[in-house]
Each structure stands twice: as structure tokens, then as C-alpha cells.
């Protein structure tokens, strides 16, 4: 009996004294190995009488289990100690800059165009495309600007040499489109009503100063069906500007105006008010003057335009509007100078640009 207790005390001390895994393993071999002390004691069971064995057996087994458990516990403790020691020597400078990611920015004009597609897409409009180099027919005549009409001079047009392979003089006369309205014409010439179309693109006018650039962008919207009225124009435009500027009660005002390709024609203003040195879009708070700024031209498509595109104005009618994309982008994002859109200063692009990972979407609110 005393043998067991003595051995247990010895082994327990040895386990506790083992201060690394190697020493612990030595203890394990000396106790539980083939030639170990516990194993040797276990072997004596064979020579015992059944009564002795019945008494000694459980005691020896208990000793074996207890020692094994102690070794295992010590092993865990030693492993943890070893890991802690290693980790404590592995400290890095976590304030060093992270590995760089390459990431550029989307130009604000692309952002706005994506936003517009998202807004108008949700209203059921789809995009049409047309060329930047246009002819006199599509840019002017078909849009009810008769040759020599003073309205043509509202727009300073860039001209290209005539296309001598064209027999029709109005199609031979080449120019850079002064508005995206020309896309309306191509779209209506090629398709069948109804039309529920938007288009975007570069437009050109011979003008270059603080507030004009020879190239700029426009959006055009066209909705032709049997019963599209000016009330729909008003609804569509109001929904658009409120969604675009994210102001639910943005005041919108329509004024009569003139564009040859519409009748009636309107200019559309949105409301703003003064705030400190700057302005803020929206409904003026009580006691403040409601001011208006013009943002686009609109109207009911002129019957001559429909006829020019082979559409029967007795059957079909609808609205169109056009809008400068730079202008609404400047307003929405507070960009003060038109010319900077085309200067490609990377500091400007980084500041006013948008992440490619966060694209506009009418469902997620951009």
C-alpha cells in the first residue's frame, strides 16, 4: 500500500517539477512507459491471489489514471506557457500603414448618369443612343428649326466639312450635335410608338468662358403615347428632380417658354433659398424668400417633329425635356466651376469622384 502512495507522491512531484514538454515526457515514460514504475506495479497483479488482485487492482488502475491525468494537465499548462512565450516575442508595429489598395474614382458625370438611369429606369424609361457628329436634318430641321430660323442662332454650332457621298443636302451638312434632342429624332425615325426613352451624351457649342465649355453633356427624355399629357410631363419632372436631389418637397415651377421642337414649351425652375453665404435647394423656411433657378427646358413634342419622324400627331402625342448634366451635378454635389469637370486634376477627381464599389441604385438609394 505504502508503495502506491509513495510512488504517487514521487510522480506527482516529478510532474510538477517538469518545466518543459521534454522533461514531462521523461516523467511519462518513467511512470507509464513499458518499463515505467506504474507499469511495473501493474505487472505484479499477475502474481497475486484473486483476493489480493481484487483489492490491489482498482488501486493500481486509479493510480495509473490519476498520473495520466496529471501529465495531461501539466502538458496543457506547459503548451500554453510555451505559446504565450512565443507570442510575447512576436509583437509588430501595428501603426505601420497597411498595404495599399489601388482605388480610383468614378467621374461625377458618370455618377450622375448612372443615377439618372436608375431614377428613370424605375419609371419605365430605357436608354437610346445616337452619334455626336450629326447632320443638319437631325439636329435642326427635323426638330422644327427651319433653315434660316433665328432660333438656330440660339446655339453656336460647330460645323464639319460636308459629306459629299450624301445626296440629301440636309444630311450632307455635318455638325456636332448642339443638343441630345437629335437622338429623339433618330429613335423615332427608327422605331414605332410608344416611346419611353432617355438618352445621354456629349453635346457641343462654340462657346468657351467661365460658364461655358465647348463640350458638355445633356440628358434628353422622351415619352410618346396616345394619351401622354403635359400633366404627365409635370409629374415626371417633379418626381425626377425630387428623387435626384433627394428632397421630397423640392418646389418645382413651370414657366412658358419657347423651343422650336415643343408646343407648348416650358422652362422648369427648382426652389432654393439663401443660407449664410451660400444657397440651399428646397422649400424656403418661413420668413425666408423662396428663390428659383432654372434647370431645364421641356414641352409637348411639336406636331411637326412627330410628322418629320413619320408619326401621326393625330394619334400620338407626348413630352420631351432636356437637361444639362453638368448643371445638375454641380448643384447636387456643390461643384463650383464647370470648367473643372474637364481638367482631370486628380485632386479634384479624388475629391468629387465616387467609389466604383458603391454604384447608384434607386432601390438602395445609391
Amino acid at each position: 500500500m505504502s508503495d502506491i502512495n509513495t510512488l504517487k507522491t514521487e510522480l506527482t512531484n516529478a510532474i510538477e517539477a517538469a518545466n518543459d514538454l521534454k522533461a514531462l515526457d521523461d516523467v511519462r515514460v518513467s511512470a507509464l512507459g513499458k518499463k515505467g514504475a506504474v507499469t511495473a506495479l501493474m505487472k505484479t497483479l499477475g502474481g497475486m491471489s484473486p483476493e489480493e488482485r481484487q483489492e490491489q487492482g482498482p488501486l493500481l488502475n486509479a493510480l495509473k489514471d490519476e498520473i495520466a491525468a496529471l501529465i495531461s494537465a501539466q502538458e496543457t499548462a506547459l503548451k500554453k506557457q510555451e505559446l504565450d512565450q512565443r507570442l510575447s516575442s512576436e509583437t509588430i508595429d501595428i501603426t505601420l500603414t497597411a498595404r495599399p489598395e489601388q482605388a480610383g474614382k468614378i467621374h461625377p458625370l458618370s455618377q450622375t448618369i448612372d443615377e439618372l438611369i436608375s431614377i428613370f429606369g424605375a419609371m419605365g424609361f430605357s436608354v437610346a443612343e445616337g452619334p455626336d457628329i450629326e447632320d443638319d436634318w437631325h439636329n435642326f430641321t427635323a426638330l422644327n428649326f427651319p433653315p434660316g430660323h433665328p432660333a438656330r442662332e440660339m446655339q453656336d454650332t460647330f460645323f464639319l466639312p460636308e459629306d459629299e457621298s450624301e445626296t440629301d443636302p440636309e444630311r450632307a451638312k455635318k455638325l456636332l450635335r448642339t443638343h441630345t434632342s437629335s437622338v429623339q429624332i433618330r429613335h423615332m425615325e427608327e422605331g414605332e410608338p410608344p416611346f419611353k426613352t432617355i438618352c445621354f451624351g456629349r453635346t457641343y457649342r462654340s462657346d468657351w468662358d467661365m460658364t461655358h465649355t465647348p463640350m458638355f453633356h445633356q440628358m434628353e427624355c422622351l415619352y410618346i403615347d396616345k394619351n401622354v399629357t403635359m400633366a404627365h410631363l409635370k409629374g415626371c419632372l417633379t418626381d425626377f428632380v425630387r428623387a435626384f436631389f433627394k428632397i421630397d418637397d423640392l418646389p418645382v415651377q413651370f414657366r412658358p417658354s419657347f423651343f422650336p421642337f415643343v408646343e407648348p414649351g416650358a422652362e422648369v425652375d427648382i426652389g432654393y433659398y439663401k443660407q449664410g453665404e451660400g444657397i440651399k435647394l428646397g422649400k424656403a423656411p418661413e420668413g425666408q424668400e423662396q428663390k428659383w433657378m432654372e434647370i431645364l427646358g421641356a414641352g409637348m413634342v411639336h406636331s411637326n417633329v412627330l410628322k418629320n419622324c413619320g408619326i401621326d400627331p393625330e394619334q400620338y402625342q407626348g413630352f420631351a425635356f432636356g437637361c444639362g448634366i453638368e448643371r445638375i451635378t454641380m448643384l447636387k454635389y456643390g461643384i463650383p466651376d464647370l470648367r473643372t469637370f474637364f481638367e482631370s486634376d486628380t485632386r479634384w477627381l479624388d475629391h468629387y469622384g465616387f467609389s466604383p464599389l458603391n454604384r447608384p441604385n434607386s432601390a438602395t438609394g445609391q
Partner: protein
Amino acid sequence: MKFTLSWLKRHLDTDASLEKICATLTNIGLELEGLEDPSKTYEAFTVAYVEKTEAHPDADKLQVCTVKTKNDTLQVVCGAHNAKTGMYGIFAPEGSYVPGLDFTLKKTKIRGVESNGMLVSEKEMMLSEEHDGIIELEGEPKIGTPMVEVFGLDDPIIEINLTPNRADCAGIRGIARDLAAAGLGTLKPLDTAAIKGTFTSDINVSIEDTEGCPLFLSRYIKNVKNGPSPDWFQTLLKAIGLRPISALVDITNFMVIDHARPLHVYDANKLTGNITVRETKGDENLEALNDKSYAPVAPGAIGIYDGSKENGGLIGLGGIIGGAPTGSTNDTTNVLLECAYFNPSRIARTGRDMSIISDARYRFERGVDPEFTAIGIDIATTLILEFCGGEASEIIRAGDVPDWKREIEYDPAYVEKLIGLDVPEDKQLSILTALGFKISGKGPYKITPPSWRGDVHGAADIAEEIIRIVGFDQIPSVSVHGENTGTVAETPLLNKGRKARNALTARGFDECVTWSFMKTDTAKIFGLNDNQAAALTLKNSISSEIDTMRPSILPNLISTALQNTARGFGDVALCEVGPVFESAKPDGQKTVAAGIRAGNHAARHWSDQNAARPVDAYDAKADAIAALQAAGAPAANAQITRDAPDYFHPGRSGALRLGKTVLAYFGELHPAALEHIDAKGAIVGFEVFLENIPTAKKKSGTEKQLLKLEPLQPLSRDFAFLVDETVEAKDLIGAAKAADKTLITAASIFDIYQGKGVEEGKKSVALSITIQPREDNLTDKDIEALCTKVTENVEKKTGGPLRG
């Protein structure tokens, strides 16, 4: 178009406030552009009386004045030499803004003496440049009288932005008529009594160009005395910025502003024989009244000729400008007055051809009221007789009033159909009547627009007339949100562009938008031949820097990179998705996603000694592939050929193709092309041709194929081959893969070595292959056999043995 409130009220009897008038102008389509209300600017300034002046105790040139103003008697220190007891002047009180000094007056002490407000000079009030002393009023004006009354400044000036269709409102009477129709008072009647001539004019008129000039009325007025027009008339003109010249000239200016009716006054003594109207040939010269000489005038203008020999007798361009030699002067005693109707498009053409801007052209090209010709000549005659005396002849009439009458069938229900607003029929008719439209029949009506509304042609025009008077604010707002049909808003091209843009910006490119045009010689270096350049060069460019449509986006991006370098940012990656042009035809325009990298690929970083390596062609290749893949091109299957355009480095560039179709070019830019744009150092770039990327067909049902996962683990084996340095990677990889197309799923080069241990002209290429066991695990023997086959294949194809 500028006019004063008082001039408007000569035609409009109204109690409406200025604010109401201005708001209504905008609401009915005559957009208010500007409003100057001098009575507001000068509100604070009134007449004051200087009761007493005393010398300032501390300053020789200053006087201390006791000034009696509207409400108080105040002490004012004044430095003007003419300040004296008993004078009347204009007083600016404390707190008022002095426009000529651009500051607001405060109570102050001048050299220790308190001063309240000031007595002002004309310059300080911005009335003139006069600053020699303060304003000294004559007589004994009432103290406290507003300054605007004393100076006749109490007349607001209204400016409207006139749209080209509203020729009728290029005269104040037209504006008054519109305002009356909008309910702002009543239009005053116009005295249109015909003047009976007392003799017959000797000067006959014949019209040969009846298309250009259908009607020419003239009248001889003898024994006039030209000179300044009356004060009230001059004040009228001066208020809107017109300089009075002489009664005869002032009257014609007045007719233009008042009635949108240009007339011309000839000095009859300077005319020879009779007048003929015919087309100019283009070989005649004209000394014009705008002090310019036109030598020669444009052909096809409406020429007014007399019987003289000089210049073929051309004395003026009808409807545009008169000739100086036959114009009236202060010495004119006999007058021929012309009032004609000229064809708008002919006037527009000549005006444009000759770049002449005149009040007459402005009105004739928009269309003057043909019926007003006869009334206009009588109103002008009345004024001439009143201001200059004389005796008028009967009117000599050549030609006829052009036929302007047209009937438009109009159903009042159309307003609701087009506008979506129900306007009661009687209201519609009363608006039209007020605007001068004649209505006959019973719904549908026959409507005749008035002679001054040449812009009204159809039912939509009539609906517009009604709705602009009713007010656009009355139109309801109806949403157009349609049923969701699953229609995709984006076109395939836009979709590709957007995805390419997103991929490129995610790779570090900043997206730019640069001009669609560039310098001609740059365009030629970047791909335009001479014929293309001729067709794509603007005829009227603003600058030779931007006169040719671009064949490539790259040069613009390179220039942009240079500008950024000049700002201190030399390591740039810039891209653009936009048009390039091969011809002026619609299909000559292509959409390209292009990008360039300049300087170093990235900034230096502690974690990577190679981070700041210079950009190279492989960057551009990766960019091109990324853009292509994002846009849906099977870039992995693209062939690579060495035939990029000449503006790329011949050895360091390539094309990615699908068969004959070029998907993209990439590589280092040619140093000579860069030098042309003044760029130094290597710049790499790419051009992805979005139209050439096949558009994915819309799949029905599931859009992805079912995934089949291999149950067995893949393994890899590495090789090193010693090959000629000219051997291309694609041949090595192709040969390795060809060893077993089923089992070898990938082959890639992971090292290339030249130098010690490798003989000159050779390179050691390390290749790794991935083997995917298919149905059964491979034995060591199987793998060995496969590797031998790889080695043999590569050696056969490239001549390169396995490196020992």
C-alpha cells in the same frame, strides 16, 4: 427687350403693382430678365436745406453745416467748396448706402466734430462723373422731396428675355396687349386715323423682288425742320438707354421700341429718280449707317436702289440697314419715309451672311405685323409733322400686304387632351379674344390668329396661348411610373462601358472626361489618315488645339497626365470611357475604354521594395484584360498578336483579338508619339473597343451552368526549361498544356532567369503545371509519364531542354 414702367403705361391702363406686373410677365412667357428700380436705390436720399455754415475749428477745408432735412435739423461736416448757407442739396442720412462710395454711412466725428450723414455729389449718387462739389439744386424745392422725383428717376426699367417666337412683343404695345389679356388692366386704344396727304410724291417705287419685299409704302414729307426731339420724347428714349440724335432718327427708334415697327427715313434731296427694290447681285458696295462699309454687300439681299449711277444705285439693304449717303441729317428738309414688309427668312440669311446686327433685322427676321405697315407709316408721319413740321404727301403704295390669314380648326376639348387640365370653353374663348384671335363657327371653332402672331399655326399653339394665360401652375402633376415589365434601361453598350469603368477605377484609375477633339497633327499621329482628318476637322473651331475629332483617347489622357505631373502628381492612372471617330458618319463613331499609367505603379511602401517600380506594358495588359473581362469579353480565350498601331512601342505592345476582331490594344506608347505631346519617360496604355466585345445573348431560364466539382485533389509539378530568349511564353505554355488536355488544367510561368549560369541568348523559364486527376487517383508512374510528355512536347516546340 427693355422698357420702362411709364412707357408700358402709355399702352396699358392698369392699377397693378410693379411686382405683380413682373411676376405676370414671367408667368405668361415673357420672362423677367432684370428689374432696375431707381426709386429703391435712391429711396433714402431727399432734398435738404443748409441753414448755416461755420468754419470747422480744426480743419481749414471743412465746414460745419446745420442742415434741415425731412425730419430733423442735423449737424453735418462737409468738405465741399460749394457748401454754403441757403443752398438746397441732396442729403444722405446715417445708415444709408451710398452707391458711388460703396459704403453705408455711420454717425462719426470728423476732426472731433460730430457729423450726421452727408451732403452728396452727383458722382457719389452715380448720376454722373461730376465730383466738383456737392449737388446744388436750383430754385426752392420742398425739403424732404425724394431725390428720384427731383431727377426724374422714378421710373423702373423692366427687361424681359424675349423668345424668338414672340416678334409681337419686340414692341411695348405687344407686351401691354399680353398683360391685358392676362387680366392686368386694359389696352389703351391706338389712334390709327389715316393721314390725308396734300400732294402726290414724285418718287415712284417699283418692286422686282416681290418675294423679298411684298409691300413697300412710302411718303414724301417736304419742308421739315430736323433738330432735337422734344424733352419728353428724349427722356423716354434715354430711360431705356437710347441716345437721342435728332427728331427724325428718334422717331424711327421710337417706332421700333413702341410698335416693333422699323421704318427708314431718307433725305429726299439726296435721292436720284425713283426707287426700285431688287435682289443684290453682290458686286455693289454700301456705306452703311452703322459707320461700316460693306464692299461688296452679300448677293441675294433685298436691295433698295435709286436712279443714281454710283454703286449701281444701291442706297440700302431693306430691313437690315440703310445707307449713310442718303440718310437724314440735321440739315434734312425733305424726307422720304419708307415703311415696308420684308421676308423674314431672306432678312435672316442676309443678316447672317453679312454679320449685321440691327434692331430692324431683329424684328423683320422674327416677323413684323404685316397689317401694321399702313398704320405704322401714319403714326410716324404724325410724329414727324408734330416735331419737325412740314407737309406730307399721299402714300405711294407698291405691292400688297402678304397673305397672312389662316384658319385653324380648334376643338376646346383639345386643351384637356394635350395639357391634362380642363379649362372651361368660355374661358378659353375669352382668352383668345383678348389676345386678338378671331373666332367663328361653333365647336370645333375656326380660329384666325391676329396678324401680329405669325408664330401660331396649329391647335397646339392655341392650347399654349390658353394655358400660358391660365397659368402653368394650374396644370396637375401626374406620375408616369409604369408597370414594371422587367425592361432593362441600359443599352448593351452602356452596360459594357459602365462595367469597364468600374473595373478600371477599382484597379486604381481615376476616370476623366476629356474633349472629343484634339490638335490635327496629334490626331494624325494617333491614327487618322489625311482623308479622315479632312472630314473630321471642324470648319469653325475655337482653337487649333481642339479642332479635329479624336481617333483615340490616349493623347488626351497623356496630356492630362502631364498637367497632373506639372501639379506635382506624376504617378497617375487615368482612364476614360468615351467616343472616338473614324469618319463623320454615324457608324464612324466607336466607344472606347482607354487608360494610361505614367510614372511609378504605386507609391513606395515599407512592405514591398518593388512597390514603386516603373509602370510597364504588363500593367497595361492586365488593365486591358480586366476591362475586357468586366465588360463580358472572353479575354482568357483572346489571341495575342503583335500588331498594335504605330503609336505604340513596336516591341512592347500587342493586340488582344477574337479571330479578326480586335478587342484591345495595349503596351508602352511609342517614344516618338510621346515626344510629340512633350511627354517624357515611359507611359503605358490600352484601348478597349467596346463595340467589338460580343454582347451576351439573353439566356432563358438559369443563367449559370451547373457546377461539377472534381472529387480528387489537384497536384502540381514544376519544370525549368532552357530556351532561346526569343521563345514566347504562349508557345511554352501551349506545348505544356498540349501534353494532356484533360489532366493538365493550368500551366503558368513563375520565374524567368537570365545571367550567371545561363548562356548568352538563352533564358531559363520555370513553369508550373496543375494536374487534375479525373476519375482515379494517379500513380507515381502515371505522373512521371505525364511529366516526361510535357518535357518532350516543350522541347519539340521550343527546342528548349529541361534545365539540368
